[in-house]
């Protein structure tokens, strides 16, 4: 196996492990740390792919992804976290051990389901594409089962990272415009959630999103 492929598979493994780690840990700061690491892994994947097929635009995308996912977004999340006192996910809707087993099941599903995709382009890169799919599923799972607003944002960011990874690995990169558009959307979403979290904190003294249900009842 050439060195480049070896590095790529390591980056993919790290990418998936970060997602699993997000389910494992309860401290919100650790979540953000893992997200940063995952962003770096994603950027690594993009850089390695860009080096495989030297192309200035691809390299630019890779750098942009790195800056955004490993720099800007985690920084914003840390700022949100600084204003929220409860820094732990105390009682997730599904307990941690069960979440981890669910993550295992979803990973298996991703591998089984992505088989046609892999058969379509039997290159080393495409073989790692199920990793992205698995991260998408784990991200949704996280967003669906955690109570804290920050955890849910992290879940959505995992979904986005997963989609980006699938796009990179399966097709060798997304068009620059699409990637930038999606990222801008996300940036906006994070900013909105930041405002929301701050308001939530001010109104209820907590960021448990289940409290939002009470708004409807009133």
């Amino acid at each position: 196996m050439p060195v480049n492929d070896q590095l790529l598979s390591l980056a993919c493994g790290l990418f998936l492990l970060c997602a699993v780690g997000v389910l494992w840990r309860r401290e919100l700061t650790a979540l953000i740390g893992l997200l940063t690491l995952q962003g770096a892994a994603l950027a690594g994947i993009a850089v390695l792919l860009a080096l495989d097929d030297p192309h200035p635009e691809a390299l630019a995308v890779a750098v942009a992804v790195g800056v955004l996912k490993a720099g800007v977004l985690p920084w914003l999340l840390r700022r949100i976290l600084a204003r929220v006192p409860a820094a732990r996910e105390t009682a997730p809707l599904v307990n941690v051990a069960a979440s981890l087993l669910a993550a295992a099941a979803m990973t298996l599903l991703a591998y089984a389901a992505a088989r046609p995709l892999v058969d379509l382009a039997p290159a080393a890169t495409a073989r790692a594409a199920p990793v992205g799919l698995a991260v998408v599923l784990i991200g949704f799972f996280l967003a669906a089962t955690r109570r804290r607003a920050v955890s849910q944002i992290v879940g959505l960011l995992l979904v986005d990272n997963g989609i980006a990874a699938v796009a990179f690995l399966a097709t060798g990169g997304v068009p620059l415009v699409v990637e930038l558009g999606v990222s801008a959307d996300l940036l906006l979403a994070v900013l909105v959630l930041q405002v929301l979290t701050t308001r939530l904190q001010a109104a209820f003294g907590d960021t448990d999103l289940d409290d939002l249900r009470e708004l409807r009842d009133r």
Partner: protein
Amino acid sequence: MAAYAVAAGQAVLVAALAPWLLGWMRAVRARLEGRAGGRFGQPWRDLRKQLRKEPITPADAGVFFVAAPPVLMATSLLIAGAAPYVSTRGPLSGVADLVVVVGLLLLGTVALALAGLDTGTAFGGMGASREMTIAALVEPTLLLAVFALSTRVGSTDLAAIVAAGAADPARVISPVGALAAAALAVAVLAESGRLPVDNPSTHLELTMVHEAMVLEYAGRDLALVEWAAAMRLSILLGLLATLFLPWGVATSLHPAALAGATALFAVKVFALGGLLAAGEVFLAKVRLFRVPELLAGSFVLGLLAVLTASVLA
């Protein structure tokens, strides 16, 4: 014949090394915590003292209490002789594979758990109950790690796995190897009763697991139990070392190769032990009911290792 000698030599080596390893780990820990600590040889001195003292059987205990220490010792010695620590050409390579090693470890645990229940004290039962719960939950991780390791070789034979790793080091440093090593490392911590699963130096009834089971042992019996427990730690660290750092394991029965492999094995195990002791400085024991989370995590790692192995194969 030479192969049998190697196996016996390995068993003696592990038995001799185990108390030193324990002393070394205590010393590392003490030094990092800023204490003076005991001498390296202290566990050996303790063993010698205990071996000379009379064993005491609780009034209500039966044959299980008496039989458990020798059985535990026997399983430890057998694994120490069978695993390819020094040479992949042992006589026992066709007899016991990785699954059997896992089974033998479990057999030793069971012997001790039954001894704990046999004493009829609350502590014995408590320790046995906790130990068996942890042992039951570790099994999936252990076997998935075995699965990941056996995939490329097409066999669960330990010698074959180690020989393949020694011949082609690149395959050891791969995502599969890293994931399997991480999964196995957590399982090793749980199996050998180290932090964060069990605290080997506690005697607080709320937290102790292994120590609660063996609380009634005294004298010679206690010496055997402690010695065997130390051997299990060496065995497990040795397995980690030979499976994931297979360099230097002799693939022939040449005396020079064997001598080199023996020295290297000791160095590897002591290095891992030192690493473990250093790590324990920063760890606290987790609650018993948080252990399943830890093991679920290592289970996922094992599963990912298997998946990666089959995808990259």
